[in-house]
C-alpha cells in the first residue's frame, strides 16, 4: 500500500498478468452508518444516482459505452464505505477509468433518475421480504443493538426514502468524494506506469479538501437480557434464525483470538455448531457464526435454518452452546486445530491479485495498519489457548443474545417461547 503523499488517496496496487483483466475499487470512506438519522438510504441513493449518468453521458449512453467495452462499473454500499468497483479488459482500461472518473467527479444528478430510483428502492425492499434469509438479516441488524449506527439499514425504509432529496445526495457526494477520503485499489494486468495513470485520472478532478469528519457513530450500550423477535411469515417449513449480540471491532486487540474462537464455534465443518446442529441432529443444512468485520464494534452472529418443528430446541441448544463457550472457551486441542486451519487457509485468501487488493482496501477503510489481515497468521502463532478463552469471556455474551426467527408464528411461537431465549415479540414480515 502506498499513500500518494501527505494528501491524496490511499493507493494499493497488486499487479498480476494472469489474465488480460484489471479490477479497480474506489472506496469512499463514510458509508451507510453515516446516513443522517431519519434519512437512512441516502448514501446508497447518492452512489446509485451518481452512476446513472456522468460527464457528457446520460445513463443510457454511459451503460452502452461501458457494455461496449465488455466492462462494468458497479456500486456497493457497506456500513463503512461506498465502493465503486470497475472491471475492464486491459486494452480498454484507460477508457473505462475515464468513465469511472466522470462518475466520481461529474455526476449528472438527473432529476428523472432521482425520481425513478426513489420509485425503485421500495421494490428492493419487497425482494428482501420475499427472501427469508435476507429478511432475517435485515431484522437482526435492526434489533440487535438498538441505537447502534450499524443497526440502521443501508437500503432505507419506506419512511426514510420519502425524506431523501436530490440536493442532499449532491451535497453528500461533494462532501465525501474528495481525494483524501478515497482508498483506490488496482489489481490485475497493470504495470506501475499504468497504475499511476489510473490513480491520477480517478482523483485529479476531485476536490483537494480534507477528509470529512464522519457523523459520530458511537456504539450504544449492549442491551441486557435475552429477547426474541419472531418475524411472522405464512407457509414456512423452517425458521431462518439469527442469534447474537454486539461484540468488538475487527482490528481490536482480540481479533486474532476471536478468529480462532469463531472457527471453533462455527467457522469450519468440524466446528461445534455444525457438529451439534447438523451432524448429530440433522436440524439444519448449515450452522455457523462470525464476528462481522467492520470499522467499529459490530455483531457476533450465529445463523442457521432449522426445520419449523425443531426451531425451539435449536435455539435453546444454540444458546446453551454459546453460554458454555463464553464461560469456558475452547479446549487446548480445539485451539491448536483452529490455528492450524486458519494459518493454512491464509494462502487461499491471498491467492489472486484481486483478493490481495480487496483485503488491503478493507484494512485501509477500517483504518488498520497496512498488511493487518495478511499478517494475522503471525499473530495467530503467538496466541495461547488461555488468550482465546479470555477473549471468549470478554467478547461473547449469551446473556444478551438477541434471537430473530423468520417463520410462521402459529406453528413456532410456543416452542420459541419455551426456548429460554427471553421475551418474545411477534412482528409481521412486511412491517420493516
Amino acid at each position, binding site marked *: 500500500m502506498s499513500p500518494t503523499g501527505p494528501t491524496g488517496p490511499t493507493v494499493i496496487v497488486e499487479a498480476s498478468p494472469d489474465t488480460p483483466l484489471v479490477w479497480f475499487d474506489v472506496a469512499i470512506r463514510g458509508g451507510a452508518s453515516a446516513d443522517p438519522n431519519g434519512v437512512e438510504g441516502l448514501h446508497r441513493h447518492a452512489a446509485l444516482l451518481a452512476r446513472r449518468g456522468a460527464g457528457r453521458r446520460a445513463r443510457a449512453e454511459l451503460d452502452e459505452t461501458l457494455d461496449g467495452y*465488455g466492462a462494468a462499473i458497479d456500486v456497493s454500499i457497506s456500513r463503512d464505505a461506498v465502493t465503486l468497483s470497475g472491471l475492464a*479488459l486491459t486494452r480498454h482500461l484507460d477508457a473505462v477509468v475515464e468513465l469511472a472518473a466522470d462518475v466520481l467527479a461529474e455526476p449528472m444528478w438527473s432529476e428523472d433518475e432521482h425520481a425513478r430510483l426513489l420509485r425503485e428502492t421500495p421494490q428492493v425492499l419487497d425482494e428482501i421480504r*420475499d427472501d427469508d434469509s435476507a429478511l432475517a438479516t435485515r431484522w437482526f441488524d435492526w434489533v440487535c443493538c438498538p441505537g447502534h449506527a450499524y443497526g440502521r439499514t443501508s437500503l432505507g425504509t419506506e419512511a426514510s426514502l420519502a425524506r431523501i432529496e436530490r440536493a442532499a445526495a449532491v451535497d453528500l457526494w461533494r462532501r465525501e468524494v474528495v481525494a483524501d477520503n478515497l482508498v483506490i485499489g488496482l489489481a490485475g494486468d497493470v504495470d506501475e506506469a499504468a497504475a499511476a495513470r489510473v490513480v491520477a485520472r480517478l482523483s485529479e478532478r476531485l476536490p483537494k479538501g480534507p477528509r470529512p469528519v464522519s457523523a459520530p457513530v458511537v456504539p450504544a450500550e449492549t442491551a441486557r437480557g435475552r429477547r426474541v423477535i419472531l418475524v411472522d411469515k405464512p407457509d414456512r417449513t423452517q425458521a431462518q434464525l439469527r442469534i447474537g449480540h454486539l461484540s468488538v471491532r475487527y482490528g481490536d486487540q482480540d481479533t486474532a483470538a476471536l478468529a480462532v474462537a469463531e472457527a471453533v464455534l462455527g467457522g469450519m465443518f468440524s466446528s461445534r455448531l455444525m457438529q451439534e446442529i447438523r451432524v448429530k441432529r*440433522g436440524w439444519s443444512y448449515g450452522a455457523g457464526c462470525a464476528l462481522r468485520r467492520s470499522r467499529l464494534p459490530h455483531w457476533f452472529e450465529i445463523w442457521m435454518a432449522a426445520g419449523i418443528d425443531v426451531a425451539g430446541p435449536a435455539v435453546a441448544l444454540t444458546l446453551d452452546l454459546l453460554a458454555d463457550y463464553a464461560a469456558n472457551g475452547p479446549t487446548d486441542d480445539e485451539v491448536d486445530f483452529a490455528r492450524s486451519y486458519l494459518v493454512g487457509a491464509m494462502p487461499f485468501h491471498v491467492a489472486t491479485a484481486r483478493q490481495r487488493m480487496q483485503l488491503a482496501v478493507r484494512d485501509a477503510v477500517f483504518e488498520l495498519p497496512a498488511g493487518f489481515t495478511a499478517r494475522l497468521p503471525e499473530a495467530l502463532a503467538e496466541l495461547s489457548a488461555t488468550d482465546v478463552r479470555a477473549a471468549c469471556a470478554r467478547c461473547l455474551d449469551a446473556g444478551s443474545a438477541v434471537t430473530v426467527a423468520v417463520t410462521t408464528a402459529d406453528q413456532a411461537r410456543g416452542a420459541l417461547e419455551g426456548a429460554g431465549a427471553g421475551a418474545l415479540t411477534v412482528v409481521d414480515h412486511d412491517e420493516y
Partner: protein
Amino acid sequence: MTQSWQLEAEAAIGRGVTAKRFRLANGLGLIAAIDRRAPIVALQTWYRVGSRHEQPGATGMAHLFEHLMFGQTEELPPGEFDRLVERTGGESNAATWVDWTYYRLSLPARDLPLGVRLESERMQHLVLEPVPVEAERDVVTNERRERVEDDVDGSLDEQLMAQAFTVHPYRWPTIGWMEDIRALALPHIRDFYRTWYAPNNACLVVVGDFDERALLSLVESHYGHIEPATLPAASRIVEPEQTRERIVRLPKPIATDRLLVGYKAPGQDDPDWATLEIIATMLAGCPSARLYRRLVIEREAASSVDAQLTPFHDPSLLRLAVTTARGHGADEVIREIDAELAAMAGHGDGTGKPPSRGEVEKAKAIAETDFWSALVDLDGKAEALGHYETALGDFRKVNAIAERLAAVTVDDVVRAVNTYLRPERRTIVIAEPEPDSAEEAA
C-alpha cells in the same frame, strides 16, 4: 510420464497455463494444469453421474451422495475426512447437477498427496450404514426446505423444469422430490455407489503448484489398482418437440408476481448454443441489455430481469427470470418480452429495434470478459476443465466455445431467435401473491 499413463490431449487454458489429459488403463482420466502463482492446488474429482442418471421414484440419489461421500470409509472414522482437510487449512465441498457430480478440495500444495489419498479412499471404500445415511437424509430434507419449499425462486425453478420436460430426466430436480428423498432405500443407495463411483466414470482435475511426474506417480499409486465398473448404457431419452405454450401459476407469500420463462434450447455442444448465449446477454446480461432497458428502465414494469442459458449436455432451456414491479403483472411482462423478441426476429411492432452489429459486438465483448473472469483462480480453472470434460467429453471445448462466441453474427442472432424463441417452444411458471400478500402490498 510413467508408463501406465497415456497422454491424450493438451491445450492452453488461459495465459501461460497448459492443461493435459492423461488416462490410466482402468479408464481414470486425469487433467493436470500447472499454475505456480500461489502455493496451493485445486483437486477436483468429477463423476459422470448426475440427476439425469436417476430413476423416477428414486430422485435425489446423486445429490444424496454429495453428502454421504464426506462420511465414514473403511479407513476413516466419521468426521475424519473433514478434520484432515481442515487441519491443513484446506476446504472441501461438492456440487451435483443434471450431468455430473464433482468433489472439490482446495489444499496447500504440500498436502496434495493427502487429497489424492482421501479421494481414492472414498471412491472405493465408503461405508454406507443406516445411522449416518438417516442423518444425512435429514440434512438433505432441510436443505430442500431452505432452497425450494421456503424459497420462491427455488420452487419456480423446480416447476419450470417439471413442466418443460415431459419424458427427459431433466424434468426432476437435482435435489430430488421430497417424497423420493425420504424413501431412498439403503440397498439402492449401495447399488448406486457401486454402479457409478468407479475410475472409468471419473476424471481428476488438478490445477496449481505441483510437479507433473510426481502427480502422475501419486495418482497411479492410489488409483491404478482399482478395477473399472460395468457402466450402464448411456440414456438416449429424447424430449419430444414442444409445440404448445405451457403456463402454470403458483400462489406464494410474495409482494409481486415473479415469472420464469423457459424456451427450449439446444445442448451446450450444439453450434447454436453460443448464439443463444450471445442472445441471453443481449436480452438481460448487462445494464444496456434489451429487456433490462425495456422492462426495468423504460416501462418500470419489473424490478429485476435475468437471462440464463443452461450449460447442459442435452437440449435444455434459455430462461428469463423477471420480478415484476408494484402495480404490474406477469401478463404485461410477457407481452413486453414478446414485443422485444419480435423486434430481434426482424418483425417487430416498432417498439424495438432489430439487432445491429454493434449490439452483437457488445455482447461478445462481455463474453470475452466473462471467459477470462472464470479463469482467474485455480478453482475456476478446474471447474471449467472439469465441466467441459464431463458434460461435453473434452476439456478443450472451453476454448472451442469461446471461439464460437467470438464468431457469432447478426444473421446468426436473427435466425436463432426465429428458430428457438417462439411462444410454442416455451414454458412459463408464474408465482403470484397469495390473496393476503397482495392486499398488503397494495
